[in-house]
């Protein structure tokens, strides 16, 4: 990278806010995915003006720019795929305003997700999107990826909780999109920019919705001797129109990995558990807890435990939210998929994933948002062996192919990034993608912002053969 550009950045931000020596950059070539890409430099803006200045410098020297929060993303969204300036928002981490009465907060993008909920908890409010990474991941990152989490089943994903944005376009323009009051006249630009995976703008300020904490929360652990019983339970709960706040499934293999690490109290001899939560008014939550427990028993749950207090509940959630950490102890590398299927297809999909694991000789664990049909099969492999890596990718592709055959999608909450761009043609035609590219080019005309993401660089996808265009219902007339 041009040393003049580095000097300009240092002049703008100060020497302590610019990293460019190879050993300093090492940390920033990773995120939570299996991808690696090293930036040419890393900068830490302190305010919106800094961000505008960085973008101007990037334009002057024609260097790519990539936004990054905590780097917990699972699809390579915050990696410098083609090198360039990585703009890390960790120093823009102030909560600018909390409006308790109107249930809104204005935050800088580097605010950690859980910190906002902690800051408003004494007002009986919280920020509802709760990705498992919420103790580290930033709201700016959540907005870019439109993050989900266990409780999005009832509360919705990030986009349902964002009112307006301040953003710096790759051209250096500072824009305000939407407004804190509802139904901003004109096109729903926040709706487009949330979840655009950092390819349309660098987000510098976010106005979010704060949600009232529920009066009562009931957390249940249902224990099953077969995976089929657990998945059939989810199908039945959904079909009966019971919407729990969360409905997570862990299979036996994952439970054993978790228990060896967290000791959450999951029984290690079972085939699957469902971690279910119902909340709301005391009267409603109590009834819903009973309804949910009844459905579990109807599908042969060996036992349904109800957390007796906050400590027991926290322990169960600790088991769930630290599961990926637990899995990391078992294998040098693991590959997490994020496919989504209609909830009615859960039983056959889980059976199919098991068969695919056997076919390729991998252990595939499953820990996922069952209530949303959002799967997270975990494939353990050793990336140091090239053949294993290829087999892992092939098995993952086969799982995703099956999800799409079921009428599903390739990613429910992790994003496409640089990991699944080649899978996009399974869901979208060239026409679909060309329109999206035109939208991108409208805001990111030189392509300097986060290049090489979402859209495949080459046409087609060799490994999987699913008819493109099945996503919007075309295959199910």
């Amino acid at each position: 990278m041009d040393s003049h550009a580095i000097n300009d950045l240092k002049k703008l931000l100060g020497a302590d806010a610019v990293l460019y020596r190879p050993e300093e950059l090492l940390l920033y070539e990773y995120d939570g995915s299996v991808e690696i890409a090293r930036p040419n430099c890393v900068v830490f803006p302190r305010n919106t003006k800094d961000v505008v200045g960085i973008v101007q410098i990037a334009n002057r020297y024609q260097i790519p720019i990539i936004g990054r929060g905590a780097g917990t993303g699972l699809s390579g969204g915050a990696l410098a795929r083609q090198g360039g300036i990585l703009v890390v928002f960790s120093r823009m981490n102030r909560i600018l305003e909390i409006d308790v009465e109107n249930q809104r907060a204005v935050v800088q993008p580097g605010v950690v997700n859980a910190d906002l909920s902690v800051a408003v908890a004494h007002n009986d409010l919280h920020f509802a999107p709760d990705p498992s990474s919420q103790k580290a991941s930033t709201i700016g990152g959540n907005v870019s990826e439109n993050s989900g989490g266990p409780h999005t089943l009832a509360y919705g994903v990030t986009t349902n909780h964002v009112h307006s944005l301040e953003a710096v376009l790759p051209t250096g323009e500072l824009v305000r999109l939407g407004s804190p009051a509802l139904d901003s006249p004109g096109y729903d630009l926040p709706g487009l920019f949330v979840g655009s995976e950092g390819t349309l703008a660098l987000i510098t300020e976010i106005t979010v919705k704060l949600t009232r904490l529920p009066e009562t929360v009931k957390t249940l652990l249902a224990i099953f001797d077969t995976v089929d019983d657990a998945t059939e339970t989810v199908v039945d709960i959904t079909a009966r129109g019971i919407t729990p706040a969360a409905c997570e499934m862990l299979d036996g293999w994952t439970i054993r990995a978790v228990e060896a690490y967290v000791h959450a109290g999951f029984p290690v001899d079972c085939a699957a558990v469902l971690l279910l939560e119902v909340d709301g008014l005391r009267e409603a939550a109590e009834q819903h807890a009973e309804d949910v427990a009844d459905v579990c028993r109807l599908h042969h749950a060996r036992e349904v435990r109800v957390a007796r207090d906050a400590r027991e509940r926290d322990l169960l959630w600790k088991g769930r939210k630290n599961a990926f950490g637990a899995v990391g102890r078992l294998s040098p590398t693991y590959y997490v998929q994020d496919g989504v299927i209609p909830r009615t297809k859960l039983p056959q999909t889980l059976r199919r994933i098991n068969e695919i694991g056997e076919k390729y000789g991998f252990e595939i664990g499953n820990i996922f948002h069952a209530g949303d049909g959002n799967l997270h099969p975990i494939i353990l492999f050793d990336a140091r062996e090239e053949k294993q890596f290829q087999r892992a990718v092939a098995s993952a592709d086969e799982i995703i192919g099956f999800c799409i055959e079921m009428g599903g999608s390739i990613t429910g909450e992790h994003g496409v990034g640089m990991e699944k761009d080649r899978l996009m043609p399974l869901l979208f035609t060239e026409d679909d993608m060309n329109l999206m590219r035109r939208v991108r080019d409208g805001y990111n005309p030189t392509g300097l912002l986060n290049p090489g993401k979402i859209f495949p660089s080459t046409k087609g996808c060799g490994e999987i053969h699913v008819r493109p265009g099945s996503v919007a219902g075309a295959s199910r007339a």
Partner: protein
Amino acid sequence: MSTAGATVSSRLADIVGPLNVGTDPAQLAAFAIDDKNPSSVVRPQSAAEIVEIVKFARKERLAIVATGARTKLGIGLPPRQYDIALDMTRLERLVSYDPGDLTLSVEAGISLHKLGAILTEHGQFLPLAAPYWDRTTIGGTVASGVDGPLRQLYGTARDYLLGMEFVTGEGVLAKSGGRVVKNVTGYDIHKVMIGALGTLGVITRINFKTFPMLSSSRAFVATFQTLERACGMRNRVSQSHLAPVTMEIFSPGVTNLFASDAARRIAPTSMPENIFSGSRWIFTSGFAGNQNALERYENDLRKMAEECGAVDAAVLQGPQLASAFALKREFIPLALSSSPAVTILKISVLPRQIAEALTAATREAESRHLPWVAIARGVGVIYFAMLPAESGETSKQLTHQAADNILSACAALGGHVTIPWCPTGWKDTLKVWGLPRADFAQMLKLKKAFDPHGLFSPGRFVGGI
């Protein structure tokens, strides 16, 4: 008909068949927008036919407006050009419905009423309780961005729309999103189509999340001497753990509107006299749940109402509840039919600013002796209707002055105002889309990506897009 007109209609007939092209004046008048008739009405039956129509229109530089039940064509500025009315009502198929997954894919021309009947069979519903419920189409409801009382609990279409298929201004059939309840693959393009008044594309298919029908529901109604007290009740509820399904404040004049002949046709059941008469502000909130939850809501709401200084209170259920719901859903058509020159402002402010915004609006109307009614949703969206007794130039001037002042007052609060409904002849002076917006340049970029030749609804949308 001119020779050019005849050529256009014969070319359209090649695409959809001669029986599905209309050119006689009476037919065309039924599709008028702001007194402007199209030169042809086309009734396609598939997305493929729409692709051909758009390609043809592009070549001939003809302007297209997609229509459904034509209940909301008055929204927006008059079209700059209007050649083809694209009647979408033949695209009314249920593409797929998986009740067990609570997901649905439908063509845009299906009516909310017909779709509602299908969903009811499976104990489900779509929370799009939009005005003109008995005939409005799902495509028209989504494209016009109108809301309904259920947004209190369920949000708006953007919160439960999963994906969409549409035809762009280049005549390309494209889609975004999917059919599953959680999905982040590709840009959420379907979100910008909501409320875009058809200026970005012709919506052909929409995928939705459906919802289980509420077990048992009621509505709590209380009257208050002042707007401030009614708003106090709203604030009190929003601070509690109650999660009502609907929450509105009606201005005193609303009871007269709800007693009209038009209202009786919508809602034949009579309402409790002590509540729905007189000159008080009405707070109303629907709630649902099991018996214990219903009792809890009722007790809590009664107690809160008492503390907030309510004059009277009642709980509606059964036919009264259904009637009250239908009336507030149909507030806009009822208001529009109540005077010869109705102007309805849609005011958006933060929830705690409802009282201030409404006070400013009523002051502006009353100081000009303009009769008015209003309904405020608890989320901060107010419909404020001014109802002059006659439609002459004086009424136009007075309404214009009042509207401009209300716009400024709400802008000062950080909110915004549009004027979705007003007489056509008043659109030259009224600020239909409110004050100029800072993000307008970013909207133009979107328009250019979708409809570079400006075929769709030209001139009707924000900033004359």
